[in-house]
Structure formats: structure tokens, C-alpha cells
């Protein structure tokens, strides 16, 4: 009888209930939308006559950066609200935003490098946009390492909230640097490219048809779904850790 009560208490404190219906629906819709946007980019959009097939990577390269923008943006929102209210739920959102955003920015960085090899004839160049994107990735990788190194939960949450807010500067610099620094070879698709830009192409109707759905997916569905899953997991991990400490103290 006592054992049953304990098990019940564990279950109450650690949410082992099935995925909420909305999250389940969101996961299915996201997976289908991901497959759909891939099909649009690989099958429906025409081949760029100058760049060849590699231009299709653009339908993931650019949206993945905006996906990272959403995720890191949620880290800022989570950090600000945590600092104001000290509600742990917002700290979980901030952490989840960093993990998902880092994965997206790695996709952005690596697909850009793979595109550059046949178009710029190099895997990497210390162009302002590429350099700022690499610094952004390293800044958020450092977030995860620092977070793992602070033992006190209260200090950890407060410190990482501040870090997450400040780190967003690297996202803004990466976003706007090609509008500010003229010595970039990175093309701008929306608006005028810098004079040195190499490998640009026109945002014609075929490009827009493949790009817009992909942008919408990476901006909204993909980061929100993944972050929601990660937040649920983190809530249970934290509860489990508390139980472990409790069990050890008993």
C-alpha cells in the first residue's frame, strides 16, 4: 500500500503522461510539411542554369538561419521573463531555444559551406557574414558548456538568462552584416546584393514558390515543435533530478 503511494507520488511529480494532442498533431504536420517543402525545392523548383543543382540547397540554407532566429529569439524571451518572474518554465524554453537554434545554425553554416565549394571554389572564406555566423554558433555552443558547468540551479538559470539575452547580439550582427559591410561576397537575395557578391540569383516566381513554404516551416512549425518537445523533456529531467537528490538524502 505504501509502495503504491510512493510510485503514485513519483508519477505525479514526473509527468509520464502521453504527448498532448496538440503537440502530437503539430509533430505530424511538421513532418509532413518538411517532406512537402523538400519536394518543392527538389522537384517543383527549376534548376538554376548558372549554378546547377546545388542552388536547391538554398531552400534549406536560408530558412534554417531564420529557424535559428526564431529559436534564439525564444531564448531571449524566455530569459527576460525568467529574470522578471523567476518561473523555471521560461528557463526551460530558453535552454530548448539554444539547443534547437544551434542545430539550425549548424545546418545553415554547413550547407552554406557545401554550396560555396562549387560556386566560390572554396569550402570557407573569412567573409564578414561567414565569420559572424561561425561566431554565433560558437557563442551558443559556449552557452551549453557554461550551463553544464554551473551547479547551483538558481545561479545557473539567472546567469544563463543574461547570457542568452546578450548572445542574441551575434544573431543580429549575422543578420544585418551584409547590409552594413560592403566587403562581403555573400549574395543578398531580397534586395540589392553588395558589389562583391558572387553566386547570387534572382528571386523569380519559381524560387519564391519553393522558398516561401520552406521559410514558413523553418520560422514557425519546426522550431516550435522541437522546442516544445525539448521543454517537456527538460521539465521531466529536472523533476527526476530532484527525486534523485531526495532519494539520496533519505
Amino acid at each position, binding site marked *: 500500500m505504501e509502495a503504491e503511494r510512493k510510485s503514485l507520488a513519483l508519477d505525479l511529480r514526473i509527468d509520464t503522461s502521453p504527448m498532448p494532442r496538440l503537440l502530437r498533431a503539430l509533430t505530424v504536420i511538421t513532418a509532413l510539411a518538411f517532406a512537402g517543402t523538400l519536394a518543392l525545392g527538389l522537384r517543383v523548383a527549376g*534548376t538554376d542554369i548558372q549554378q*546547377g543543382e546545388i542552388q536547391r540547397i538554398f531552400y*534549406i540554407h536560408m530558412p534554417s538561419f531564420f529557424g535559428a532566429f*526564431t529559436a534564439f529569439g525564444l531564448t531571449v*524571451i524566455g530569459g527576460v521573463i525568467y529574470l522578471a518572474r523567476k518561473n523555471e518554465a521560461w528557463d526551460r524554453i530558453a535552454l530548448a531555444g539554444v539547443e534547437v537554434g544551434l*542545430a539550425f545554425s549548424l545546418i545553415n553554416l*554547413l550547407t552554406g559551406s557545401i554550396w560555396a565549394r562549387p560556386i566560390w571554389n572554396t569550402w570557407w572564406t573569412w567573409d564578414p557574414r561567414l565569420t559572424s555566423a561561425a561566431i554565433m554558433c560558437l557563442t551558443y555552443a559556449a552557452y551549453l558548456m557554461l550551463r553544464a558547468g554551473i551547479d547551483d540551479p538558481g545561479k545557473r538559470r539567472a546567469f544563463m538568462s543574461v547570457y542568452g539575452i546578450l548572445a542574441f547580439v551575434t544573431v543580429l550582427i549575422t543578420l544585418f552584416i551584409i547590409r552594413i559591410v560592403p566587403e562581403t561576397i555573400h549574395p543578398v537575395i531580397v534586395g540589392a546584393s553588395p558589389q562583391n557578391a558572387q553566386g547570387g540569383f534572382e528571386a523569380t516566381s519559381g524560387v519564391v514558390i519553393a522558398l516561401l513554404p520552406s521559410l514558413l516551416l523553418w520560422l514557425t512549425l519546426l522550431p*516550435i515543435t522541437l522546442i*516544445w518537445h525539448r521543454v517537456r523533456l527538460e521539465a521531466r529531467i529536472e523533476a527526476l533530478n530532484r527525486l534523485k537528490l531526495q532519494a539520496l538524502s533519505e
Partner: protein
Amino acid sequence: MMMKPAITIAALLCALLTIGLVSAQDDEAKTPYFQSRSFNAPILAGWENQSGEDFAQFHWAEASATIRTAIVPLDDISDAVGADLSEAFGIAVGQPIYRDKVNLADGTWSALVYDVDEATTASVMARLASAGTLVISFVEQDPAARIALLTMAQTDDALDDPTPEIAIAVESIAGRSLSELTRAESVLLPSGEWTVYAGEAMSAMGMVFGNDSYIALREGAPGDLAALADAWNRTLLGFFITPDNSQYLALGLAVVFVILGALVGSLFWRERGLRKDLALLEQLAGEDE
């Protein structure tokens, strides 16, 4: 509640991007290229477009001139040129009156000039391509004129003047001396600035691009040599084959799947670890009782 700010921001960004992309969309600005499965050739404005599925062909009736681009599935350049001219124009070419090789940015080309009959001359640039031989030909069938268009490496690449190569072409193709012609004022055409020599029976033009001279000769009554030479050079310099880099696309997609797979996999892996730890805690709690 938690997701509302994110959704609002995402919606605003989507709206801004949509407006930006749609306003940037400009189908009219697309480069006017004829696209086949194998190559892309500039469309010549003002010329009648006679292109088919696998070849680009433009005809100017007033000058009785045709510019054609095709990939012929033969590996011997002479055979490929002969086959293409025969199929497209019904002309049989013998030995060329001029033949030379020239290294351009995209490979080694053969420049050939044929004197087919009293009315017809053919100028051809050809090079080996992955699917056979790429043949870009200019055929004029005006009995009042004989036209030759050719490319040759500069004898002195420090010069920005094609005169030495014009002299070679005039002598080797027309058997004349450049001294018979008078240097006229240069003309600026879409393909570049052309040096012009004119005489009673002949005119010659040339432009330098890279380390090569592009030469146009016309024997007979003065005509539209400038327009023909410009169209030929725009075809020659504007032509390109879409690169095959699909292996890089495959690599890019593999990277995307590996990173997303690692992210989703880590969620599953941590979830599994969590359930195991929970089961262990429950087991320990039961044993304590």
C-alpha cells in the same frame, strides 16, 4: 500563453519576408537564355528564333545569316562539325580554309572557317564536351559577301589591340595585306569595343577579350558586319553549360538529415534514459518498503 509571443514574432517576420520576396520577384529581369538539357545560349534579339529541343538557332533573313549552337554526339571535331552543318543547312564541307586551336576559359576550342560554295561560308567554334562535341556555327549564304568569324590567341597579350591578329586573319583567309585597309573609328557594341579596318573590297573588325582576339572579316559589298560580329561574340562569350554539381546537393541534404536526426535522436535517447532512471527509482523505493 508561452507560445503566443513567438507565434506573433514569427507571423510578423513571415509577412515582412513575403512582402520583400514578392516585391523582389521580377520575371522580366531574367537573362534571355535559350535552355536545352545540355547547354544555355543567349537569345539574339531581332533574330528569328528557329531553336529546337536540343539546339539553339537564330536566323537573320536580311543578312542571310544563321547562328546555331548544338552538341553533336561525336568525339571527332571535324566529323561533328560536318555532321551538324550537313543536318542543319544541308551543306557539305570539305577542308577548312582556316583551322587553329585556341584556349579559352572553358577549354580548348577549334576555330574553323569553311569556304563552302560561291554563296556560302561557314565559321565554326567547336570543342569537346562530356556529351560529344559542342559546335557553335555561323553560316552566311549571301552571294554578295563572304564572311569569316574566328578567334585566335593574341601574339602579344600585353596589347589591348587586335590589329596583329586582324593582319594574320586578313592574310591567311583573304590572301590580302592589312595595308590595303584603312583604320576607321572604333565602335562600341554590346559585346565590347571593336577595332575597325575598312577598304573598298573588304572590311575587318576585331576585339580583345582576355588574351584572345575575336576577328570578323567581310569580303564584298559593305554590309552588317558589326551586327553579325556582335551577335556571334555574344553567343560565343555568353554561352555556358550548366555545371553538374548534384553530388554537392546530396552532401548538403545528408548534413541536414544527420544534424536534424541527431537532434531528434538525442530527445529520444534522453527520454529513454529518463524512463530507465525513473523505473530504477521506483524499484529502489519498493525495496525500501
